[in-house]
């Protein structure tokens, strides 16, 4: 398990994860605003699991987490993201977004976004989706002359591109 711990007050770190595995992120100083990107791809018969736990321990901290997964062939991708808000973390603002794209009918996915909140002065939310590439998107690109493989590739590329960073000075 890899542990990241932020102890510098008012820090604005950006963390990017691309390898499956177990991660623990502790936000231990006041005013830390973390932005976390996770990009994961599986193919063939791979079976991968990402376990990410973000723990808010200090006051007025924020975390914005965007996890993207793409599962192809016969692979199996599982993403378990948990936000824990400890009683000491007054004024937490946390958001966790998990999205998984399935490229083949044989690919499998699991998305488990958890929230454990022991403090009322918080704003926490999470969202998760699992879907395949909509046929109409493929159709649109193919009607512009791309073949199916190229169209798929483009859509995956767009899907994995990091979301535009929240406007920051």
């Amino acid at each position, binding site marked *: 398990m890899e542990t990241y711990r932020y102890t510098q007050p008012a820090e604005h770190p950006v963390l990017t994860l691309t390898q499956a595995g177990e991660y623990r992120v502790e936000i231990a100083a006041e005013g830390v605003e973390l932005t976390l990107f996770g990009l994961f791809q599986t193919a063939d018969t791979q079976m991968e699991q990402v376990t990410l736990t973000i723990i808010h321990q200090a006051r007025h901290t924020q975390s914005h987490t965007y996890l993207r997964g793409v599962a192809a062939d016969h692979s199996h991708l599982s993403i378990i993201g948990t936000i824990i808000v400890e009683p000491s973390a007054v004024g937490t603002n946390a958001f966790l977004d998990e999205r998984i794209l*399935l490229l083949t*009918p044989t690919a499998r996915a699991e998305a488990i*976004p958890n929230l454990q909140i022991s403090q009322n002065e918080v704003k926490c939310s999470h*969202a998760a*989706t699992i*879907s395949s590439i909509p046929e109409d998107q493929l159709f649109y690109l193919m009607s512009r002359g791309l073949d199916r493989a190229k169209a798929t590739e483009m859509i995956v590329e767009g899907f994995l591109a990091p979301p535009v960073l929240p406007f920051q000075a």
Partner: protein
Amino acid sequence: MARFAPLTPQASPDWLDDTSYQHGFRSSTEDYALISKPGLNKRIVELIAHHKNEPTWMLKQRLAGLQIFSQKPTPTWGADLSAINYDKIHYYLRPLSHNAKEWKDVPQDIQTTFERLGVPQAEREYLAGVKMQYDSEVVYGSLRQEWEKDGVIFLSMDEGLAKYPDLVKQYFGTVIAVGDNKFSALNTAVWSGGSFVYVPPGVKVNMPLQTYFRINSENAGQFERTLIIVDEGASVHYIEGCTAPAYSSQSLHAAVVEIIVKKGAHCQYTTVQNWYKTVYNLVTKRARVEEEGEMIWTDFNMGSKVTMKYPGFLLTGKGARGETLSMAVAGPGQHLDTGSKALHLAPHTRSSIVSKSISRGGGQATYRGLVHVAPNATHSKNKVVCDALILDSASISNTFPTQRVLTSEVELEHEATVSRVGEEQLFYLMSRGLTEEQASKMIVQGFAAPLIRKLPLEYAVEMNRLIDMEMEGSVG
């Protein structure tokens, strides 16, 4: 806790002395026809089967249940169940030797109990049929003639087994197997009471059927078993209400509800659960939905010490639909662990789960759900929305959704938010002259309104009143 008005300290931290629970009265158990000794063993199970004069296949099921119950460990993944003392509970409490056909034949103290709960009045005014269960047995039941004429069956489960043994045998335990979990096994071993509903093809019962569950004894176990079969193209709405007296000792309520929704049929099952805050409520509810059928669970949890309940649907036919609307209000000393399970087992199935919870005064509300899409369930859609309100810093709110997809061409969405009553919202209302308490109540009611709107009017009024009472003095 920034506020705009001075905080007034709230007295009575001892929530067991809570006077706001108006269903806490009790009646004597002296005249009971039978109260089994506390504890559970093979003899108790045989005693129940003997008293009910059941076919042997049912006794076999009961004994299988008993064996699984004693072998399975108590689940530890959810709420804390370690305080349940299985040896202290009375597993079978029979208040009367016979069921009453007419309301006037029901003994006076039981009549008074149900009158105080307002059930007979509701029966006269807007229900198609009613059952009243008092501890282990259904003491009274009725069904309006117009539905009886159409072939609708609405009996207690015991009567159902006696009158329609083949129908019961065909479906009993087919949706929730004996060994599904520890408490479904316990229920199978000692079940008593509950409802048996059969709606013939094409019959639409447009007034709700209701069962009212009342625990009256101390250390009581209530294990009702409900089986609802909605035949092709039929439709029914079933409502259950639950209350118990204010005893400081624990009682255990472990029901099993199985529903079969056939092709094109529609079933709505509404629960308004308001057990006293010492009751363990561990219930297994599941529906099997066939082609183009629709199942709606509306689940309101206000009472009980611990509730673990995840009404689910198996969408087994093409185009089947499932919907869960769940609301939990967890107050001091309570842990409400609720949610829903959606299993997509056929193509073009759709489901949605909307869960709202409010935790206050140190209460804990948990959403725990499962969405499973099987390999052949292509073109399925699911949406889960969880909203939680936390009213003070001592309370806890958790969300544990699981989404598992074993095929492509599906759409799954999950959203959850946890927040407190917004300061701007409070400020806005208070600037219009409301007190902080009125403003909070109004916001909480607005939060719950989308679910309460799904209830029949009389229940919606009752739910609003309950939430109002529950929120009394809880501004924090």
